[in-house]
């Protein structure tokens, strides 16, 4: 995996243990990203920590976590101390239970991660757990501490890896009755329902990621491209001179490529 793992630890089934790594299944990296600039100087704006009493900047090495005991009273906790908290589930995903996938309603799914072996030595053990779940058509349930919560997690085989979903707590999902009770127990009118089903069938399509394309992102890229053209006409540049101004410009190439892709998508759609 080229991407730095978000979490490293162990996957365990009874006496079988293998080293694993995990990364979020979602990412912001392909999104049109804006930086914050200072309008006056056009320079980047960055955030830094300052001491709330002295107002002086704090070095990154001096930033430390504090656990509040009382008003203005903190206990300092170093990262390695926090990691050492007495819970196995900070480091080991110990599968306690297996359940049919459809017994866990979608509403419990919180955040998806991709779980993969982290060391060739554990690949076979990982594959055994994955393939047995797949053969039995079951998902595994375990506990995992992730961003300061110990959550139930669900493990589901996918391709050569496993998707790990953090699941919501019982009190995080609101009682549906208070929202749905006014609907009553009425059933659909039997004489009209076949028509609705017919309409549905006509409009039924196979799932494709095309259904989740983002026209807004495409539009933003167009706005940016138009502004860039203007920028070129107006000023040679007020930007910092680079050492190698003639070096191939990746950003611009990507932009052109993106625009071409967008145009191609459009044509394909028509």
């Amino acid at each position, binding site marked *: 995996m080229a991407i730095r793992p978000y979490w490293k630890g162990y996957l365990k089934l009874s006496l079988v243990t293998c080293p694993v790594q995990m990364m979020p299944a*979602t990412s912001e990296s392909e999104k049109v990203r804006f930086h*914050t600039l200072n309008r006056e100087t056009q320079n980047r704006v960055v*955030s830094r920590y300052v001491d709330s009493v002295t107002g002086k900047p704090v070095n990154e090495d001096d930033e430390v976590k504090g656990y*509040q005991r009382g008003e203005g009273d903190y206990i300092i906790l170093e990262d390695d101390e926090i990691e050492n908290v007495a819970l196995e589930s900070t480091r080991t995903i110990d599968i306690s239970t297996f359940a049919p996938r459809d017994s866990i309603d979608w509403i419990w799914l919180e955040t998806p991660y991709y779980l993969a072996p982290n060391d060739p030595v554990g690949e*076979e053990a990982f594959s055994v757990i994955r393939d047995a779940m797949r053969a039995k058509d079951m998902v595994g349930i375990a506990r995992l501490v992730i961003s300061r919560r110990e959550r139930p997690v669900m493990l589901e085989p996918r391709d050569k890896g496993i998707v790990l979903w953090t699941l919501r707590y019982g009190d995080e999902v609101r009682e549906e009755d208070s929202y749905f009770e006014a*609907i009553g127990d009425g059933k659909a009118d039997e004489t009209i329902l076949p028509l609705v089903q017919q309409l549905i069938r006509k409009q039924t399509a196979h799932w494709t990621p095309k259904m989740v394309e983002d026209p807004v992102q495409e539009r933003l890229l167009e706005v940016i491209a138009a502004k860039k053209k203007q920028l070129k006409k107006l000023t040679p540049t007020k930007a910092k001179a680079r050492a190698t101004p003639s070096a191939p410009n990746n950003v611009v190439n990507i932009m052109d490529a993106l625009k071409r892709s967008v145009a191609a998508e459009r044509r394909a759609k028509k």
Partner: protein
Amino acid sequence: MVATRANWKGFLNFGEVSCPVALYTAASSSERIAFNTLNRETGNRVRREFVDVETGRPVGRGDQVKGYEIDDGRYVVLETDEIAAAVPESDKTLAIDAFVPCSEIDDVYFDKPYYLAPDRMGRDAFILLRDGMRKEGVAAIARTVLFRKLRTVLLRAHGKGLIATTLNFDYEVRSSKQAFEEVSDLKIEGEMLELAEHIIGTKRGSFDAKAFDDRYEAAVAELVKAKLEGRSLPKKKAPPVSKQSDLLQALRESAGLAVGTPARRAGNTNAGRERAKLAKPTPSKAKSAAAPTRRAS
């Protein structure tokens, strides 16, 4: 019961049918333990400050604008209203573009769930759509402007109502194929697979979110207490990893542990108090009676 306020009100359209509906947050995040960032030198809290990277001077909110980097160090400036203009005008309508068989839906795209319920006037149309989708085994894909953002939403029947789940965009979801690219293509068969399947069979149960307790906060409180008393908690050792050479043995022993007499199983359950709380294994004789050599069906 808390009075429930709608997060969004509008219309749900399918074909020529339109029904007034409202969206309600279905899930919220409960609070997690809070740490504060301190300055180790002084023990004071720190606060965040936004400064110009060149001049080092603080930049007020009003002077902060968005810039898109087009070149190293060169930016196109976009004002908030220019960015907002890229989002289409809200027409307060969830228009169904397509229906998709539920079995084909890729859940990795799921973002947040909302309950979708009709206004009194829309009840009949709503029930028709709900029951029609249920009978056909499909969910609906719709687009709308939600909270000033254009979102794709998946609608599906849930009890008496519908659940509307916002979906992440294609570019926000990593390809699982790529993520697992480097995993070796091992096909597990024979005794190993049978043993692992047997172990799964003995651990069969169900997930009960209501029974789950977060032990993290208590563990941190314990850590703080230990620190105050000048103790340090024992360092965690890495668990022994099952090497390829002894994987079969580990599986055999695991399967042996799980092999069947009810007394043995009870002993196991005691060993993991938390397991009993998290998920109640169904005490199914049929499952535990399966021999370790059972073939995959």
